[in-house]
């Protein structure tokens, strides 16, 4: 509140909220002259007014989210310390028993490696190719509309069809891919889905193929948000396209890249239908992801154990989320 005789600071030296405060207090000052009683009861400070607005704006989203996650979350956490299977009652409290079991479970161990490499490599290349696609689709050329449509097709197809389709396409006898590599490059059978290591590459490739358009679309929207005059100024200063990307595009896109990468990492941890339908977990365990194990345990009604495995995923997600948040705050562009 201003004191009598204090010079009012120039408005443009204050930031948005300080200005707002000032205006608000002026309003309040005017009000108090006429309604001294009302001030204490009805008039809220501008800060609290905005808090209420914020709460009102957040209410639908938070309400929806709470409704569908609070109870399941609590229930899952509770289940993870029990061994509960409706077909083999009763439920028993086992403390960390499920987690010890997971530690010793050969399938869990075998799938951890591939889960991490699946998620890691997929996300990395999805962002990499996504950036390229975003630039491609942002450039002015005549068939841009059609190109955008084409590039979204992989992501717009149902996962079951894609997984099954690629299973056929990689088949050594019936598939187009071995056939084409044989015709065009003279390569003999690469044992695409038979060799454990090659199968991993194939599955990761299909995942990249399928989800890159999604990342590209988001990065495209982000690219649209970069003012073109920045590039104009840089061009006038004689920059070539490489440094323009490094100095302008990447820094300005960083928040979106970090957000998207973080979400892709988290989301792909829980996804298993691609490897499951394509290879059933692969030769041996080579293309088994942890989420598949959770799915099969859940189907066998081992709700306690499945919940415990789910909590392990939560832990991994927490780590990723924390890292992502820190990066996001760092790269915030003003």
């Amino acid at each position, binding site marked *: 509140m201003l004191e009598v005789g204090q010079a009012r600071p120039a408005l443009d030296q204050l930031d948005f909220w300080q200005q707002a405060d000032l205006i608000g207090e002026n309003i309040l000052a005017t009000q108090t002259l006429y309604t001294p009683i009302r001030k204490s009861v009805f008039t809220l400070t501008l800060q609290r007014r905005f808090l209420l607005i914020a709460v009102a704006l957040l209410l639908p989203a938070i309400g929806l989210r709470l409704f569908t996650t609070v109870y399941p979350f609590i229930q899952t956490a509770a289940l993870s310390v029990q061994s509960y299977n409706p077909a083999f009652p009763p439920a028993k409290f086992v403390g960390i028993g499920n987690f010890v079991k997971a530690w010793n479970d050969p399938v869990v161990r075998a799938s951890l490696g591939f889960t991490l490499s699946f998620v890691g490599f997929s996300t990395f290349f999805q962002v990499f190719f996504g950036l390229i696609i975003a630039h491609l689709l942002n450039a002015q050329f005549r068939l841009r509309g059609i190109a955008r449509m084409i590039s979204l097709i992989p992501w717009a197809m*149902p996962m079951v069809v894609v997984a099954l389709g690629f299973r056929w396409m990689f088949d050594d006898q019936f598939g187009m891919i071995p056939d084409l590599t044989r015709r065009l490059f003279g390569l003999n059978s690469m044992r695409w889905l038979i060799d454990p290591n090659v199968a991993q590459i194939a599955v990761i490739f299909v995942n990249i193929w399928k989800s890159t358009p999604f990342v590209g679309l988001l990065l495209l929207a982000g690219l649209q948000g970069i003012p073109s005059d920045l590039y104009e100024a840089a061009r006038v200063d004689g920059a070539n396209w490489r440094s323009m990307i490094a100095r302008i595009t990447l820094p300005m896109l960083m928040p979106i890249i970090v957000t998207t990468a973080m979400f892709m990492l988290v989301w792909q941890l829980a996804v298993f239908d691609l490897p499951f339908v394509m290879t059933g977990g692969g030769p041996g365990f080579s293309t088994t992801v942890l989420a598949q194990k959770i799915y099969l345990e859940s189907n066998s009604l081992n709700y306690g154990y499945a919940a415990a495995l789910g909590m392990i995923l939560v832990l991994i997600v927490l780590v990723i989320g924390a890292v992502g948040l820190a990066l996001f705050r760092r790269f915030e562009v003003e």
Partner: protein
Amino acid sequence: MATQLYPAARPARARRSTPDFGVWVRRYGSRIAAYSGFALFVFVVLLPFYFIFVSSITPKTELFQIPPRYFPSAPTLDNYQRLINGVPLGIFFRNSLVFALGSSSVSVIAGGLAAYALARIKFRGANIVYLALILSVALPQIALLVPMFQTFQTFKLVNTYHGLIVMMSSLLLPFTIITLVSFVKQVPDEIEEAAYIDGANTFQIIVRIMIPLVRPALFTMFLINFIISWNELLYPLVFAQRNDTKPLSVALTQLSSDASTYTRPWDLLSAMSVLMIIPVLLIILFGQRWIIAGLARGAVK
């Protein structure tokens, strides 16, 4: 001013917001490389879809050949015919449409409001809310099924459009909010300050200023959420139990032919997935202009 000293690199109307590939390419004469790169991109992207499309018009007995055929000798619409006769596609299509449109609308509206609040209003709980949103995505869907079913059953939401939309919007919200927050933060504060000083309130700011500026992001999120809902399988599989709410994605997994269990009929699957992708492509094609950044960039000045 700098622009008066140097001649324009190219005509003024060719304004682009990305580095000018064209100039670079021309300068180094590698246009062919660029175009062949583009051709490779189209090939890689489209080959699987080509396979699916061709499978859908191949007669069932000719589907799988050794070595594979790249085009059927006698293309036929028989697969589509059998699909339409065997399955009530119209009902499933309606269900999918209601489900996808509803989920994406609710998630974008609720998410957009929430994103504005989180991005612009500095209140004390903002970080907590943000973190909670991320954390809530942590548990895999399959692990949440049973308790969520119990919740929905209590509120009589099982097998209803309402229930499905509530569930799907909730699933889509975290990502929608966090992405829209990035986009809202891209918009400079000055515009809003100006509007606020001119006497606008929050509601007017959101509607008259933020939405037009963030419109490409809003539509992009709407499109993304629509596609995700359109193809979503696990939750509708469990919560849409009867034909009157079952969407196309679930019907896809219940296609059967050949009197055989444990196999999926590729002839019908490919036909159905071609049919399923058409609405999505139409939305993309006709919604093109909403993805393009508004000329409001200039409004900042």
